[in-house]
């Protein structure tokens, strides 16, 4: 499993781990999408605390989560984003779109 998940009420916390690149992004994205359609959360928190690397594949992943949560009328937040991943997200301007807590 590329990611683990905990659920409290309509809040979904999804923990990402390891290196997020093109090789892994599709599996992670599909698993996350399944979880969202199963639980229909009002808020989704993507936890980056165990992410060791992320390239632009992560931008597509975050944008997809953002779109799915918008469709549900819910919110998305990014938690414990490491410096390297934060630089990638900022280069795409995502910090202006999605609340992001860095570590």
């Amino acid at each position, binding site marked *: 499993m590329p990611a683990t998940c905990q659920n409290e009420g309509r809040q979904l916390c999804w923990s990402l781990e390891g290196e997020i*690149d093109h*090789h892994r992004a599709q599996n992670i994205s599909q698993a996350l999408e399944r979880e969202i359609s199963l639980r229909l959360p009002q808020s989704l928190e993507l936890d980056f605390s165990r992410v060791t690397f992320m390239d632009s*594949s992560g931008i597509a992943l975050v944008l997809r989560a953002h779109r799915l949560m918008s469709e549900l009328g819910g919110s998305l937040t990014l938690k414990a984003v490491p*410096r390297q991943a934060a630089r990638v997200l900022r280069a*795409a301007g995502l910090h202006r779109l999605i609340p992001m807590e860095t570590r």
Partner: protein
Amino acid sequence: MKPINSAKIEFLSRSANEGFARSSVACFAAQLDPTLEELGDIKTAVSEAVTNAIVHGYPDQLGRVLIKLRLFPENLLEITVQDWGVGIPDIQQARQPMYTTGGEERSGMGFTIMESFMDNIRVRSTPGRGTVVIMRKKISLRTRP
């Protein structure tokens, strides 16, 4: 200009090699004593260039991807990522932020990341013959404690 040091890494365009490629380049760059941030920038830029070669260079087949690394005086690192795939018909369009032919899985930010994380980048491509991306970054000279 003659390089002080050089290396070549060649692999098949399988996505499993993306991690191998960026880690290998990071190992080579380690001799310049880069900061963690510089090392992260290099790994990210290499990941983007290699992913482009794998996804866009060889969309329907496997092919060779070659990384050439050259180290020049004053801590200048040059990274060349080359493929012999389908090539890019319009490089200017491909370099536009958010432009992608890769569908929802891709963000179209690959070239933008390479441009912002490296000092400069040159792209040469011929449709039907392949693509070469040459990136340069000067690593800050640090005084060791």
